[in-house]
Protein backbone atom coordinates (compact mmCIF):
# COMPACT_ATOMS: atom_id res chain seq x y z
CA UNK A 1 0.00 0.00 0.00
CA UNK A 2 1.45 3.35 -0.93
CA UNK A 3 1.67 5.87 1.87
CA UNK A 4 -0.93 8.70 1.75
CA UNK A 5 -0.02 12.22 0.65
CA UNK A 6 1.01 14.73 3.29
CA UNK A 7 -1.64 17.46 3.44
CA UNK A 8 0.03 19.71 6.00
CA UNK A 9 3.71 19.77 6.80
CA UNK A 10 4.97 21.98 9.64
CA UNK A 11 8.71 22.38 10.25
CA UNK A 12 10.42 23.92 13.29
CA UNK A 13 7.51 26.22 14.08
CA UNK A 14 8.29 28.47 17.04
CA UNK A 15 6.07 31.24 18.39
CA UNK A 16 6.74 33.52 21.34
CA UNK A 17 4.85 36.35 23.01
CA UNK A 18 7.09 38.67 25.00
CA UNK A 19 10.10 36.34 24.98
CA UNK A 20 7.99 33.53 26.44
CA UNK A 21 7.74 30.61 24.06
CA UNK A 22 4.15 29.62 23.30
CA UNK A 23 5.07 27.00 20.73
CA UNK A 24 8.50 25.45 20.69
CA UNK A 25 10.00 23.83 17.61
CA UNK A 26 6.91 22.06 16.35
CA UNK A 27 7.24 19.50 13.56
CA UNK A 28 4.05 18.01 12.20
CA UNK A 29 3.08 15.84 9.29
CA UNK A 30 -0.63 15.51 8.79
CA UNK A 31 -1.61 12.89 6.21
CA UNK A 32 -4.41 13.57 3.75
CA UNK A 33 -7.89 12.47 4.74
CA UNK A 34 -7.54 12.28 8.51
CA UNK A 35 -9.78 13.77 11.16
CA UNK A 36 -7.27 15.08 13.64
CA UNK A 37 -7.77 16.43 17.16
CA UNK A 38 -5.25 18.77 18.76
CA UNK A 39 -5.43 18.26 22.52
CA UNK A 40 -3.56 19.78 25.41
CA UNK A 41 -4.12 21.80 28.60
CA UNK A 42 -5.11 25.48 28.66
CA UNK A 43 -2.25 27.63 27.44
CA UNK A 44 -0.66 24.74 25.58
CA UNK A 45 -0.75 26.78 22.36
CA UNK A 46 -3.46 24.83 20.52
CA UNK A 47 -5.17 27.87 18.99
CA UNK A 48 -1.80 29.53 18.44
CA UNK A 49 -0.66 26.49 16.45
CA UNK A 50 -3.62 26.80 14.08
CA UNK A 51 -3.29 30.58 13.84
CA UNK A 52 0.41 30.46 13.07
CA UNK A 53 -0.10 27.76 10.45
CA UNK A 54 -2.70 30.05 8.84
CA UNK A 55 -0.47 33.13 9.02
CA UNK A 56 -2.72 35.03 11.44
CA UNK A 57 0.14 35.04 13.95
CA UNK A 58 3.71 35.55 12.76
CA UNK A 59 5.97 32.80 14.01
CA UNK A 60 9.57 33.55 15.05
CA UNK A 61 10.77 30.63 13.01
CA UNK A 62 9.49 27.73 10.99
CA UNK A 63 7.67 26.99 7.78
CA UNK A 64 4.35 25.55 6.70
CA UNK A 65 3.71 23.60 3.52
CA UNK A 66 0.33 22.60 2.17
CA UNK A 67 0.63 19.72 -0.29
CA UNK A 68 4.37 20.38 -0.67
CA UNK A 69 4.02 24.06 -1.56
CA UNK A 70 4.30 27.11 0.71
CA UNK A 71 1.05 27.97 2.47
CA UNK A 72 0.86 31.44 0.88
CA UNK A 73 0.45 29.84 -2.54
CA UNK A 74 -2.11 27.30 -1.35
CA UNK A 75 -4.52 29.48 0.62
CA UNK A 76 -7.47 28.49 -1.54
CA UNK A 77 -7.06 24.89 -0.41
CA UNK A 78 -7.51 25.85 3.23
CA UNK A 79 -10.63 26.84 5.19
CA UNK A 80 -10.77 28.15 8.74
CA UNK A 81 -13.44 28.08 11.45
CA UNK A 82 -12.38 30.55 14.16
CA UNK A 83 -13.53 30.42 17.75
CA UNK A 84 -17.09 31.62 18.01
CA UNK A 85 -16.14 34.23 20.60
CA UNK A 86 -13.59 35.90 18.33
CA UNK A 87 -16.13 38.13 16.59
CA UNK A 88 -18.83 40.57 17.65
CA UNK A 89 -22.14 38.85 16.95
CA UNK A 90 -23.99 42.16 17.21
CA UNK A 91 -22.53 43.12 13.83
CA UNK A 92 -25.33 44.28 11.51
CA UNK A 93 -25.58 41.34 9.15
CA UNK A 94 -27.54 38.14 8.51
CA UNK A 95 -26.65 34.43 8.70
CA UNK A 96 -26.67 34.13 4.90
CA UNK A 97 -24.40 37.14 4.58
CA UNK A 98 -21.83 35.64 6.95
CA UNK A 99 -21.84 32.37 5.01
CA UNK A 100 -21.39 34.32 1.76
CA UNK A 101 -18.12 35.64 3.17
CA UNK A 102 -16.73 32.17 2.59
CA UNK A 103 -16.90 32.86 -1.15
CA UNK A 104 -14.88 36.10 -0.96
CA UNK A 105 -11.49 34.39 -1.10
CA UNK A 106 -12.08 32.81 -4.51
CA UNK A 107 -13.72 35.99 -5.80
CA UNK A 108 -10.64 38.05 -5.00
CA UNK A 109 -10.54 41.84 -4.78
CA UNK A 110 -13.48 44.09 -5.67
CA UNK A 111 -15.60 41.46 -7.51
CA UNK A 112 -18.97 41.02 -5.83
CA UNK A 113 -20.64 37.68 -5.07
CA UNK A 114 -23.39 36.78 -7.56
CA UNK A 115 -26.03 34.11 -8.05
CA UNK A 116 -23.54 31.24 -8.08
CA UNK A 117 -22.07 32.29 -4.74
CA UNK A 118 -25.50 32.76 -3.20
CA UNK A 119 -26.55 29.29 -4.29
CA UNK A 120 -23.43 27.78 -2.73
CA UNK A 121 -24.05 29.67 0.51
CA UNK A 122 -27.66 28.45 0.69
CA UNK A 123 -26.52 24.88 0.12
CA UNK A 124 -23.98 25.19 2.94
CA UNK A 125 -26.66 26.58 5.24
CA UNK A 126 -28.85 23.62 4.39
CA UNK A 127 -26.03 21.18 5.16
CA UNK A 128 -25.69 22.55 8.68
CA UNK A 129 -29.48 22.61 9.12
CA UNK A 130 -29.73 26.40 9.21
CA UNK A 131 -31.52 27.19 5.95
CA UNK A 132 -34.63 28.48 7.70
CA UNK A 133 -32.48 30.98 9.60
CA UNK A 134 -30.84 32.50 6.52
CA UNK A 135 -32.37 35.96 6.98
CA UNK A 136 -31.90 36.06 10.74
CA UNK A 137 -29.79 38.82 12.26
CA UNK A 138 -26.79 36.97 13.68
CA UNK A 139 -27.18 38.30 17.23
CA UNK A 140 -30.54 36.55 17.37
CA UNK A 141 -29.00 33.12 16.81
CA UNK A 142 -28.17 30.80 19.71
CA UNK A 143 -24.56 29.89 20.40
CA UNK A 144 -24.92 26.55 18.65
CA UNK A 145 -26.54 28.18 15.63
CA UNK A 146 -23.74 30.75 15.43
CA UNK A 147 -21.22 27.91 15.45
CA UNK A 148 -23.10 26.20 12.61
CA UNK A 149 -23.09 29.44 10.60
CA UNK A 150 -19.31 29.58 11.00
CA UNK A 151 -19.05 25.97 9.87
CA UNK A 152 -21.22 26.72 6.83
CA UNK A 153 -18.96 29.65 5.95
CA UNK A 154 -15.98 27.29 5.88
CA UNK A 155 -17.90 24.64 3.88
CA UNK A 156 -18.66 27.24 1.21
CA UNK A 157 -14.92 27.65 0.68
CA UNK A 158 -14.92 24.09 -0.68
CA UNK A 159 -11.38 23.54 0.59
CA UNK A 160 -9.20 20.45 0.89
CA UNK A 161 -8.08 21.17 4.44
CA UNK A 162 -10.22 22.51 7.27
CA UNK A 163 -8.86 24.07 10.46
CA UNK A 164 -11.39 24.44 13.28
CA UNK A 165 -10.80 26.15 16.60
CA UNK A 166 -12.95 24.51 19.28
CA UNK A 167 -16.10 24.03 17.21
CA UNK A 168 -17.74 22.08 20.03
CA UNK A 169 -17.28 24.76 22.64
CA UNK A 170 -20.53 25.66 24.37
CA UNK A 171 -22.86 23.90 21.94
CA UNK A 172 -25.72 21.59 22.84
CA UNK A 173 -25.97 17.89 22.00
CA UNK A 174 -27.98 18.48 18.80
CA UNK A 175 -25.39 20.84 17.38
CA UNK A 176 -22.52 18.61 18.47
CA UNK A 177 -24.04 15.70 16.55
CA UNK A 178 -24.74 17.91 13.54
CA UNK A 179 -21.14 19.10 13.51
CA UNK A 180 -19.56 15.68 13.96
CA UNK A 181 -21.70 14.29 11.14
CA UNK A 182 -20.39 17.00 8.85
CA UNK A 183 -16.82 16.26 9.93
CA UNK A 184 -17.32 12.61 9.06
CA UNK A 185 -18.80 13.56 5.71
CA UNK A 186 -15.73 15.69 5.02
CA UNK A 187 -13.49 12.75 5.82
CA UNK A 188 -15.48 10.55 3.49
CA UNK A 189 -14.76 13.08 0.74
CA UNK A 190 -11.05 12.63 1.58
CA UNK A 191 -10.74 16.11 3.11
CA UNK A 192 -8.33 16.71 5.95
CA UNK A 193 -9.82 18.18 9.11
CA UNK A 194 -7.81 19.57 12.02
CA UNK A 195 -9.76 20.40 15.16
CA UNK A 196 -8.69 22.02 18.42
CA UNK A 197 -10.56 19.86 20.90
CA UNK A 198 -11.10 19.97 24.65
CA UNK A 199 -13.18 16.94 25.51
CA UNK A 200 -10.77 14.03 25.90
CA UNK A 201 -13.65 11.57 26.41
CA UNK A 202 -14.85 11.96 22.85
CA UNK A 203 -11.46 11.83 21.10
CA UNK A 204 -11.49 8.07 20.33
CA UNK A 205 -15.11 8.28 19.16
CA UNK A 206 -14.84 11.35 16.89
CA UNK A 207 -11.27 11.32 15.58
CA UNK A 208 -8.84 8.92 13.94
CA UNK A 209 -5.69 11.02 14.38
CA UNK A 210 -4.48 13.03 17.35
CA UNK A 211 -1.73 15.47 18.31
CA UNK A 212 -0.78 15.99 21.93
CA UNK A 213 0.51 19.50 22.49
CA UNK A 214 1.92 21.33 25.47
CA UNK A 215 4.13 24.11 24.07
CA UNK A 216 6.17 21.27 22.59
CA UNK A 217 4.70 18.49 20.53
CA UNK A 218 4.33 15.47 22.79
CA UNK A 219 3.08 12.97 20.22
CA UNK A 220 1.18 12.74 16.96
CA UNK A 221 -0.31 9.77 15.17
CA UNK A 222 -3.32 7.46 14.87
CA UNK A 223 -5.67 7.58 17.87
CA UNK A 224 -5.62 3.79 18.25
CA UNK A 225 -1.84 3.76 18.58
CA UNK A 226 -1.01 6.79 20.68
CA UNK A 227 -4.12 7.83 22.61
CA UNK A 228 -2.97 6.26 25.86
CA UNK A 229 -2.29 7.05 29.52
CA UNK A 230 1.37 7.57 28.89
CA UNK A 231 0.85 10.43 26.42
CA UNK A 232 -2.02 11.93 28.41
CA UNK A 233 0.18 12.02 31.49
CA UNK A 234 3.04 13.59 29.57
CA UNK A 235 0.74 16.25 28.14
CA UNK A 236 -1.35 17.15 31.15
CA UNK A 237 1.26 16.52 33.82
CA UNK A 238 -1.09 14.39 35.89
CA UNK A 239 -2.15 10.82 35.59
CA UNK A 240 -5.34 11.59 33.77
CA UNK A 241 -7.20 8.31 34.39
CA UNK A 242 -6.34 8.28 38.08
CA UNK A 243 -7.33 11.95 38.48
CA UNK A 244 -10.67 11.41 36.76
CA UNK A 245 -11.54 8.35 38.81
CA UNK A 246 -10.76 9.95 42.14
Amino acid at each position, binding site marked *: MESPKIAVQVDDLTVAY*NYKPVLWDIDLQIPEGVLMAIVGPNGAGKSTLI*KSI*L*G*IIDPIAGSVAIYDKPYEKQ*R*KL*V*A*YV*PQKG*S*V*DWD*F*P*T*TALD*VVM*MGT*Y*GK*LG*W*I*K*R*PGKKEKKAALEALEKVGMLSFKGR*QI*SQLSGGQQQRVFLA*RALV*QDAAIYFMDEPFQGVDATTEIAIINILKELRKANKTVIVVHHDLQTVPEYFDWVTFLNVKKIATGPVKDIFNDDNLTKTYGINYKVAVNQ
Partner: protein
Amino acid sequence: MELSEYFTLVFTDYTLRTITLGTAILGAICGMLGSFAVLRKQSLLGDAISHAALPGIALAFLITGTKDTNLLLIGALVSGLIGTFWIRGMITKTHLKSDTALGLILSLFFGFGMLLLTFIQKQPNANQAGLDKYLFGQAATLVQKDVTLMAIVTGVCLVIVLLFWKEFKILLFDADYTKTLGFNTRFIDVLITFFIVLAIVLGLQTVGVVLMSAMLLAPAAAARQWTNKLSIMLILAALFGAFAGVFGTAISASENNLSTGPVIVLVAAVFVLVSFVFSPQRGILFKQIRFWKNRRDLQLQKTLQFMFDIVRDHPDISHPHAIKILNNFQGYTKGTLKKMEEKNWVQVKGVQWSLTQEGYHAAENLYKQ
Protein backbone atom coordinates in the same frame (compact mmCIF):
# COMPACT_ATOMS: atom_id res chain seq x y z
CA MET B 1 -33.42 85.79 12.13
CA GLU B 2 -36.23 83.29 12.46
CA LEU B 3 -35.79 79.63 11.58
CA SER B 4 -38.27 79.93 8.70
CA GLU B 5 -36.40 82.97 7.45
CA TYR B 6 -33.24 80.89 7.39
CA PHE B 7 -34.77 78.26 5.18
CA THR B 8 -35.84 80.88 2.62
CA LEU B 9 -32.49 82.64 2.77
CA VAL B 10 -30.45 79.47 2.43
CA PHE B 11 -31.16 79.24 -1.28
CA THR B 12 -30.28 82.83 -2.07
CA ASP B 13 -27.70 83.95 0.46
CA TYR B 14 -24.16 82.97 -0.58
CA THR B 15 -22.68 82.67 2.91
CA LEU B 16 -25.58 80.71 4.36
CA ARG B 17 -25.68 78.41 1.38
CA THR B 18 -21.96 77.72 1.53
CA ILE B 19 -21.99 77.00 5.26
CA THR B 20 -25.09 74.83 5.06
CA LEU B 21 -23.75 72.82 2.15
CA GLY B 22 -20.40 72.45 3.90
CA THR B 23 -21.84 71.20 7.18
CA ALA B 24 -24.23 68.86 5.36
CA ILE B 25 -21.44 67.25 3.33
CA LEU B 26 -19.23 67.07 6.39
CA GLY B 27 -22.01 65.40 8.38
CA ALA B 28 -22.59 62.87 5.61
CA ILE B 29 -18.97 61.79 5.19
CA CYS B 30 -18.40 61.69 8.95
CA GLY B 31 -21.54 59.61 9.49
CA MET B 32 -20.51 57.15 6.80
CA LEU B 33 -16.94 56.69 8.01
CA GLY B 34 -17.99 56.91 11.65
CA SER B 35 -20.03 53.73 11.10
CA PHE B 36 -16.80 51.91 10.32
CA ALA B 37 -15.12 53.32 13.42
CA VAL B 38 -18.04 52.36 15.65
CA LEU B 39 -18.26 48.81 14.26
CA ARG B 40 -14.51 48.31 14.69
CA LYS B 41 -14.85 49.46 18.30
CA GLN B 42 -12.47 52.28 17.51
CA SER B 43 -14.83 55.01 18.60
CA LEU B 44 -12.13 56.81 20.53
CA LEU B 45 -9.68 56.72 17.65
CA GLY B 46 -11.48 59.68 16.12
CA ASP B 47 -11.04 61.69 19.28
CA ALA B 48 -7.33 60.90 19.42
CA ILE B 49 -6.83 61.74 15.74
CA SER B 50 -8.60 65.09 15.91
CA HIS B 51 -6.60 66.16 18.94
CA ALA B 52 -3.42 64.88 17.32
CA ALA B 53 -4.08 67.20 14.38
CA LEU B 54 -3.68 70.40 16.42
CA PRO B 55 0.15 70.60 16.54
CA GLY B 56 0.14 70.04 12.76
CA ILE B 57 -1.97 73.15 12.26
CA ALA B 58 0.29 75.22 14.50
CA LEU B 59 3.48 73.93 12.90
CA ALA B 60 2.13 74.51 9.40
CA PHE B 61 1.47 78.12 10.37
CA LEU B 62 4.92 78.55 11.94
CA ILE B 63 6.67 77.14 8.89
CA THR B 64 4.68 78.86 6.16
CA GLY B 65 3.58 81.98 8.03
CA THR B 66 0.22 81.99 6.22
CA LYS B 67 -3.25 81.08 7.38
CA ASP B 68 -4.25 79.46 4.12
CA THR B 69 -6.77 76.79 5.15
CA ASN B 70 -5.51 74.13 2.78
CA LEU B 71 -1.92 74.46 3.97
CA LEU B 72 -2.98 74.30 7.61
CA LEU B 73 -5.15 71.25 6.93
CA ILE B 74 -2.24 69.49 5.23
CA GLY B 75 -0.31 70.08 8.45
CA ALA B 76 -3.26 68.67 10.39
CA LEU B 77 -3.42 65.64 8.09
CA VAL B 78 0.27 64.88 8.55
CA SER B 79 0.23 65.15 12.32
CA GLY B 80 -3.08 63.27 12.52
CA LEU B 81 -1.58 60.41 10.50
CA ILE B 82 1.58 60.41 12.62
CA GLY B 83 -0.58 60.21 15.75
CA THR B 84 -2.57 57.33 14.28
CA PHE B 85 0.51 55.30 13.38
CA TRP B 86 2.05 55.92 16.78
CA ILE B 87 -1.13 54.60 18.41
CA ARG B 88 -0.97 51.51 16.22
CA GLY B 89 2.71 51.03 16.91
CA MET B 90 2.16 51.35 20.64
CA ILE B 91 -0.60 48.74 20.60
CA THR B 92 1.35 46.19 18.57
CA LYS B 93 4.86 46.78 19.90
CA THR B 94 4.19 47.31 23.58
CA HIS B 95 1.61 45.53 25.65
CA LEU B 96 -0.41 48.64 26.37
CA LYS B 97 -4.14 48.36 25.80
CA SER B 98 -5.64 50.48 23.04
CA ASP B 99 -7.44 52.88 25.40
CA THR B 100 -4.15 53.68 27.12
CA ALA B 101 -2.39 54.28 23.80
CA LEU B 102 -5.26 56.48 22.57
CA GLY B 103 -5.33 58.50 25.77
CA LEU B 104 -1.58 59.01 25.74
CA ILE B 105 -1.36 60.19 22.15
CA LEU B 106 -4.45 62.37 22.52
CA SER B 107 -3.13 64.29 25.51
CA LEU B 108 0.48 64.41 24.34
CA PHE B 109 -0.35 65.84 20.92
CA PHE B 110 -3.05 68.14 22.23
CA GLY B 111 -0.73 69.44 24.94
CA PHE B 112 2.00 70.08 22.41
CA GLY B 113 -0.50 71.78 20.10
CA MET B 114 -1.72 74.10 22.87
CA LEU B 115 1.89 74.93 23.74
CA LEU B 116 2.54 75.92 20.13
CA LEU B 117 -0.65 78.00 20.02
CA THR B 118 0.38 80.03 23.07
CA PHE B 119 3.84 80.46 21.60
CA ILE B 120 2.33 81.73 18.34
CA GLN B 121 0.07 84.17 20.15
CA LYS B 122 3.06 85.79 21.89
CA GLN B 123 4.77 86.49 18.59
CA PRO B 124 4.87 90.10 17.42
CA ASN B 125 3.01 89.34 14.24
CA ALA B 126 -0.40 90.73 13.43
CA ASN B 127 -1.15 87.67 11.33
CA GLN B 128 -1.27 85.22 14.20
CA ALA B 129 -4.77 85.78 15.52
CA GLY B 130 -7.52 83.30 14.80
CA LEU B 131 -5.70 79.98 14.88
CA ASP B 132 -7.61 79.09 18.03
CA LYS B 133 -10.77 78.80 15.90
CA TYR B 134 -9.56 75.26 15.18
CA LEU B 135 -10.25 74.36 18.81
CA PHE B 136 -14.02 74.67 18.56
CA GLY B 137 -14.40 75.36 14.86
CA GLN B 138 -16.00 78.28 13.09
CA ALA B 139 -18.37 77.34 10.33
CA ALA B 140 -18.73 80.98 9.30
CA THR B 141 -15.21 80.91 7.85
CA LEU B 142 -16.17 78.28 5.26
CA VAL B 143 -15.84 79.50 1.68
CA GLN B 144 -16.78 77.97 -1.65
CA LYS B 145 -13.30 76.53 -2.13
CA ASP B 146 -13.50 74.62 1.21
CA VAL B 147 -16.86 73.16 0.34
CA THR B 148 -15.63 72.06 -3.08
CA LEU B 149 -12.71 70.27 -1.43
CA MET B 150 -15.10 68.54 0.97
CA ALA B 151 -17.34 67.46 -1.90
CA ILE B 152 -14.40 66.04 -3.86
CA VAL B 153 -13.07 64.08 -0.87
CA THR B 154 -16.57 62.78 -0.10
CA GLY B 155 -17.00 61.70 -3.72
CA VAL B 156 -13.69 59.86 -3.78
CA CYS B 157 -14.48 58.27 -0.43
CA LEU B 158 -17.86 57.11 -1.72
CA VAL B 159 -16.27 55.48 -4.77
CA ILE B 160 -13.71 53.72 -2.57
CA VAL B 161 -16.40 52.46 -0.18
CA LEU B 162 -18.50 51.12 -3.07
CA LEU B 163 -15.47 49.55 -4.72
CA PHE B 164 -14.12 47.82 -1.60
CA TRP B 165 -17.51 47.21 0.04
CA LYS B 166 -17.03 43.47 0.35
CA GLU B 167 -13.50 43.86 1.71
CA PHE B 168 -14.52 46.52 4.24
CA LYS B 169 -17.45 44.48 5.47
CA ILE B 170 -15.52 41.27 6.03
CA LEU B 171 -12.61 43.08 7.69
CA LEU B 172 -14.98 44.82 10.08
CA PHE B 173 -16.65 41.55 10.99
CA ASP B 174 -13.75 39.11 11.18
CA ALA B 175 -10.23 40.38 10.46
CA ASP B 176 -8.41 37.09 11.16
CA TYR B 177 -10.64 35.17 8.81
CA THR B 178 -10.17 37.84 6.13
CA LYS B 179 -6.42 37.25 6.36
CA THR B 180 -6.80 33.49 5.84
CA LEU B 181 -8.78 34.17 2.65
CA GLY B 182 -5.67 35.83 1.23
CA PHE B 183 -6.69 39.48 1.49
CA ASN B 184 -4.09 42.05 2.48
CA THR B 185 -5.85 43.13 5.65
CA ARG B 186 -3.22 45.78 6.37
CA PHE B 187 -4.03 47.53 3.11
CA ILE B 188 -7.79 47.52 3.77
CA ASP B 189 -7.17 48.70 7.30
CA VAL B 190 -4.89 51.56 6.23
CA LEU B 191 -7.42 52.58 3.56
CA ILE B 192 -10.26 52.84 6.09
CA THR B 193 -8.10 54.64 8.63
CA PHE B 194 -6.75 57.08 6.05
CA PHE B 195 -10.23 58.17 5.06
CA ILE B 196 -11.29 58.51 8.69
CA VAL B 197 -8.29 60.80 9.30
CA LEU B 198 -9.12 62.74 6.14
CA ALA B 199 -12.74 63.26 7.20
CA ILE B 200 -11.65 64.44 10.63
CA VAL B 201 -9.16 66.92 9.20
CA LEU B 202 -11.82 68.30 6.85
CA GLY B 203 -14.11 68.89 9.81
CA LEU B 204 -11.62 70.72 11.99
CA GLN B 205 -12.36 74.13 10.48
CA THR B 206 -16.10 73.69 11.05
CA VAL B 207 -16.48 71.70 14.25
CA GLY B 208 -13.02 71.92 15.80
CA VAL B 209 -10.54 69.60 17.43
CA VAL B 210 -12.44 69.11 20.66
CA LEU B 211 -15.86 68.08 19.37
CA MET B 212 -14.91 66.40 16.10
CA SER B 213 -15.22 62.84 17.37
CA ALA B 214 -18.91 63.38 18.12
CA MET B 215 -19.48 64.06 14.40
CA LEU B 216 -18.11 60.61 13.67
CA LEU B 217 -19.79 58.68 16.43
CA ALA B 218 -23.21 60.22 17.04
CA PRO B 219 -24.78 59.64 13.58
CA ALA B 220 -23.37 56.10 13.47
CA ALA B 221 -24.59 55.23 16.96
CA ALA B 222 -28.05 56.56 16.09
CA ALA B 223 -28.15 54.70 12.76
CA ARG B 224 -27.19 51.37 14.34
CA GLN B 225 -30.42 51.46 16.36
CA TRP B 226 -32.68 51.44 13.31
CA THR B 227 -31.28 48.64 11.18
CA ASN B 228 -29.52 45.30 11.15
CA LYS B 229 -28.03 45.83 7.72
CA LEU B 230 -24.62 47.39 7.21
CA SER B 231 -25.51 49.20 3.96
CA ILE B 232 -28.63 50.78 5.49
CA MET B 233 -26.66 51.71 8.58
CA LEU B 234 -24.15 53.63 6.47
CA ILE B 235 -26.85 55.41 4.48
CA LEU B 236 -28.78 56.33 7.63
CA ALA B 237 -25.64 57.54 9.39
CA ALA B 238 -24.78 59.73 6.40
CA LEU B 239 -28.34 61.14 6.37
CA PHE B 240 -28.36 61.76 10.13
CA GLY B 241 -24.98 63.45 9.85
CA ALA B 242 -26.15 65.66 6.97
CA PHE B 243 -29.37 66.62 8.77
CA ALA B 244 -27.45 67.39 11.95
CA GLY B 245 -25.23 69.67 9.86
CA VAL B 246 -28.15 71.50 8.25
CA PHE B 247 -30.30 71.84 11.38
CA GLY B 248 -27.29 72.78 13.47
CA THR B 249 -26.37 75.52 11.05
CA ALA B 250 -29.98 76.71 10.85
CA ILE B 251 -30.35 76.92 14.62
CA SER B 252 -27.02 78.61 15.16
CA ALA B 253 -27.70 81.14 12.38
CA SER B 254 -31.19 81.99 13.62
CA GLU B 255 -30.36 82.22 17.31
CA ASN B 256 -27.99 85.15 17.64
CA ASN B 257 -25.12 83.39 15.92
CA LEU B 258 -24.57 80.60 18.39
CA SER B 259 -21.33 78.74 17.75
CA THR B 260 -22.13 76.32 14.91
CA GLY B 261 -19.95 73.30 15.81
CA PRO B 262 -21.41 72.71 19.27
CA VAL B 263 -24.96 73.18 17.98
CA ILE B 264 -24.41 70.59 15.23
CA VAL B 265 -23.04 68.16 17.80
CA LEU B 266 -26.02 68.77 20.08
CA VAL B 267 -28.47 68.17 17.23
CA ALA B 268 -26.66 64.91 16.47
CA ALA B 269 -26.94 64.03 20.15
CA VAL B 270 -30.71 64.52 19.93
CA PHE B 271 -30.78 62.03 17.03
CA VAL B 272 -28.93 59.56 19.25
CA LEU B 273 -31.28 60.09 22.16
CA VAL B 274 -34.41 59.69 20.03
CA SER B 275 -32.96 56.56 18.41
CA PHE B 276 -32.07 54.99 21.73
CA VAL B 277 -35.60 55.49 23.00
CA PHE B 278 -37.85 55.09 19.96
CA SER B 279 -36.23 52.65 17.51
CA PRO B 280 -38.58 49.67 17.15
CA GLN B 281 -36.14 46.79 17.58
CA ARG B 282 -33.42 48.03 19.90
CA GLY B 283 -35.00 51.12 21.50
CA ILE B 284 -35.65 51.09 25.23
CA LEU B 285 -39.30 52.12 24.90
CA PHE B 286 -40.38 49.22 22.69
CA LYS B 287 -38.17 46.81 24.60
CA GLN B 288 -40.02 47.80 27.77
CA ILE B 289 -43.39 47.49 26.05
CA ARG B 290 -42.50 44.02 24.81
CA PHE B 291 -41.41 43.13 28.32
CA TRP B 292 -44.73 44.27 29.79
CA LYS B 293 -46.69 42.44 27.13
CA ASN B 294 -44.78 39.23 27.73
CA ARG B 295 -45.35 39.49 31.44
CA ARG B 296 -49.08 40.03 30.96
CA ASP B 297 -49.37 37.11 28.53
CA LEU B 298 -47.50 34.92 30.95
CA GLN B 299 -49.87 35.88 33.76
CA LEU B 300 -52.84 34.90 31.62
CA GLN B 301 -51.26 31.60 30.74
CA LYS B 302 -50.40 30.84 34.34
CA THR B 303 -53.99 31.44 35.43
CA LEU B 304 -55.33 29.37 32.55
CA GLN B 305 -53.01 26.54 33.51
CA PHE B 306 -54.23 26.69 37.09
CA MET B 307 -57.86 26.52 35.94
CA PHE B 308 -57.03 23.67 33.61
CA ASP B 309 -55.55 21.71 36.51
CA ILE B 310 -58.79 22.11 38.46
CA VAL B 311 -61.07 21.32 35.52
CA ARG B 312 -59.12 18.36 34.19
CA ASP B 313 -60.47 15.89 36.75
CA HIS B 314 -64.11 16.80 36.15
CA PRO B 315 -66.14 14.86 33.60
CA ASP B 316 -67.73 18.12 32.41
CA ILE B 317 -65.04 20.69 31.62
CA SER B 318 -67.51 23.57 31.75
CA HIS B 319 -68.60 22.78 35.27
CA PRO B 320 -68.68 26.13 37.13
CA HIS B 321 -66.23 26.87 39.95
CA ALA B 322 -66.08 29.63 42.54
CA ILE B 323 -63.90 32.63 41.69
CA LYS B 324 -62.72 32.49 45.29
CA ILE B 325 -60.48 29.50 44.66
CA LEU B 326 -58.45 31.62 42.29
CA ASN B 327 -57.57 33.89 45.20
CA ASN B 328 -55.08 31.33 46.39
CA PHE B 329 -53.27 31.76 43.14
CA GLN B 330 -50.74 34.59 42.83
CA GLY B 331 -51.01 35.25 39.12
CA TYR B 332 -54.74 35.98 39.35
CA THR B 333 -56.21 39.46 39.25
CA LYS B 334 -59.70 40.68 38.31
CA GLY B 335 -58.18 42.09 35.12
CA THR B 336 -56.82 38.69 34.20
CA LEU B 337 -60.26 37.11 34.43
CA LYS B 338 -61.73 39.88 32.30
CA LYS B 339 -59.04 39.41 29.63
CA MET B 340 -59.73 35.69 29.61
CA GLU B 341 -63.40 36.33 29.16
CA GLU B 342 -62.62 38.58 26.20
CA LYS B 343 -60.59 35.79 24.65
CA ASN B 344 -63.58 33.51 25.20
CA TRP B 345 -61.52 31.16 27.34
CA VAL B 346 -63.87 31.37 30.32
CA GLN B 347 -67.43 32.37 31.13
CA VAL B 348 -68.13 34.28 34.30
CA LYS B 349 -71.54 34.05 35.96
CA GLY B 350 -71.88 35.85 39.26
CA VAL B 351 -69.22 34.52 41.59
CA GLN B 352 -68.46 31.51 39.44
CA TRP B 353 -66.35 30.85 36.40
CA SER B 354 -66.36 27.98 33.97
CA LEU B 355 -63.84 27.03 31.32
CA THR B 356 -65.05 27.02 27.72
CA GLN B 357 -64.18 24.42 25.11
CA GLU B 358 -61.88 27.01 23.54
CA GLY B 359 -60.14 27.72 26.81
CA TYR B 360 -59.65 24.02 27.40
CA HIS B 361 -57.93 23.58 24.03
CA ALA B 362 -55.78 26.66 24.59
CA ALA B 363 -54.64 25.23 27.92
CA GLU B 364 -53.92 21.83 26.36
CA ASN B 365 -51.73 23.42 23.71
CA LEU B 366 -49.95 25.42 26.40
CA TYR B 367 -48.76 22.17 27.90
CA LYS B 368 -47.64 20.82 24.57
CA GLN B 369 -45.25 23.69 23.84
